[in-house]
């Protein structure tokens, strides 16, 4: 396997926050095309920080990160172009409240990718159908439920036709009855062959959709294997403890 087959290739990534907390302590990881990688770990283990370094929302202190063949440590238009190819969905949705659902999904296409408005609207409509809220195109985010907002956020990210999708605890802020509808959409996207890195506590999703699960502990990946191997692992006591706690 050559470097070109990797969507994400990180080598020995370190990061310490200004307050002295060591978030990442040597993370090396590769993700190949079409793979769904789920990252699990206790809160404070660095999994969200790591995810956010992949599109450089978080700077790293040392090590290297290459995404889609580009060093993430690039500048200007190279960085924005790379970010446009990496979709990201956040815990708190982060929809643009002053824009309608339709505008939320089309603004990136029109302003960043310079796609004409008609095409952008068609793409948006297809995506809204896919995430099951076709009838809400004219609504504003605050008129939607949390589950609906998160599905719009997924559609917004997919509208950029990304080659990699990052999901940062996207169901943690949802009411329990809405978790399912969001996970269903994510599974659908995974089945279509999208390369995904997912930080989550939803082990059912991990079991069903993940190709590999990485367990993060104190800023390191201490285990990375298929879901089966992770769930039956008896050697890593921290992993065992973590799995028992969330079950």
């Amino acid at each position: 396997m050559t470097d070109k087959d990797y969507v994400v290739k990180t080598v020995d990534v370190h990061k310490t926050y200004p307050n002295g907390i060591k978030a990442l302590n040597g993370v090396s990881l590769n993700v190949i095309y079409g793979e769904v990688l789920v990252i699990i770990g206790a809160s404070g283990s660095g999994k969200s920080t790591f995810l956010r370094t992949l599109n450089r929302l978080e700077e790293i202190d040392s090590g290297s990160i290459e995404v889609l063949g580009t060093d993430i440590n690039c500048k200007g238009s190279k960085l924005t172009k790379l970010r446009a190819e990496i979709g990201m969905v956040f815990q708190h949705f982060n929809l643009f409240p002053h824009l309608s659902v339709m505008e939320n999904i089309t603004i990136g296409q029109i302003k960043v990718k310079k796609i004409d408005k008609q095409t952008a609207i068609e793409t948006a409509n297809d995506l809204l159908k896919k995430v099951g809220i076709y009838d809400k195109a004219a609504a504003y985010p605050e008129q939607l439920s949390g589950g609906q907002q998160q599905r719009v956020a997924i559609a917004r990210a997919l509208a950029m036709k990304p080659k990699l999708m990052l999901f940062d605890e996207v169901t943690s802020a949802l009411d329990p009855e809405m978790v399912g509808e969001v996970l269903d959409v994510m599974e659908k996207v995974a089945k279509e062959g999208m390369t995904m890195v997912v930080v989550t506590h939803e082990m059912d999703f991990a079991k069903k959709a993940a190709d590999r699960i990485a367990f993060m502990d104190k800023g390191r990946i201490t285990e990375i294997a298929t879901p089966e191997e992770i769930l039956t692992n008896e050697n890593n006591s921290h992993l065992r403890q973590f799995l028992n706690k969330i079950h």
Partner: protein
Amino acid sequence: MNRYTKTGWNLAYVAVVIGIGYFIFISSSKVNYIWRWKAIPSYIVYKSHDAVNSPFNGFVEGYKNGKLIVKSLNGKIKRFKIEKPEVKKGDVVDQGDELGYNISSKAGPLLVGLYTTLKISVIAIFFAIIIGIITGLMRISKNPLLKNLAVTYIELIRGTPLLVQIFIFYFFIGTVFNLDRAVSGIGALAVFEGAYIAEIVRAGIQSIGKGQTEAALSIGMNYFQLMRYIIMPQAIKRTMPAMAGQFISLIKDSSLVSVISITDLTKAGREIVTSTFSPFEIWFTVAAMYLALTYSLSFLTQILERRMAKSDR
């Protein structure tokens, strides 16, 4: 509080206002002052008599349908639109003689002053917004050069009186760069209010959650697009009340430019006082005119705010 007590307090309010008014009336009637309210309207709008003079030597042929017909010595006939003729048929007129006059309404010095105040304020607001947005963005920049420049500017401006700044602008900067007094005045106002608007802009931008920036960056927006399409539209809506307050301040602060001989509303008032010795009436009128200006502005922004609030429900 039930409805009746509320009505009671409202009546008490009216009574207090009337009481204060009566007190002012009584105390002012004790000073030896002759009120001349009648003269005041003419300083706002007055009837002007515009004389019409004969361009040549000739005879008056007659006056018909508001037009005076004059025949020149070489037989040329000319009609003049005159409301009040002062010559009659058969009169001989020489070149330059007054044939009569027209009456027209002209803006008095107070209205002209109000217009100057409005003009100065609008231009100053325009530049203050530009200065404010740029320095507001610099203020939150991570680049120490930009940030320190912005902080220095804001601290210098907010730490010194506007009156002193106007003098510096007029006597120092105005002399060095050979600026017109109006440019100096508007410049001083824009630079002064810009510092306050910068702080409002900064607060507005910082009040928008970090998640908005992250979401915009994650779909590949650059800094300009992030500000233009995501942050600013939200920040502007949030800072509308503070901005409106600042604009109202600017209109009031603009009265200080009268010290460098710009004939704004305040200077016009002062000039009339020196010629009429009616300071009470003039200053009350000037105050009322400022109030009309600031009140219309706050009324306008209220409508705008309501409309903006509707747009996102």
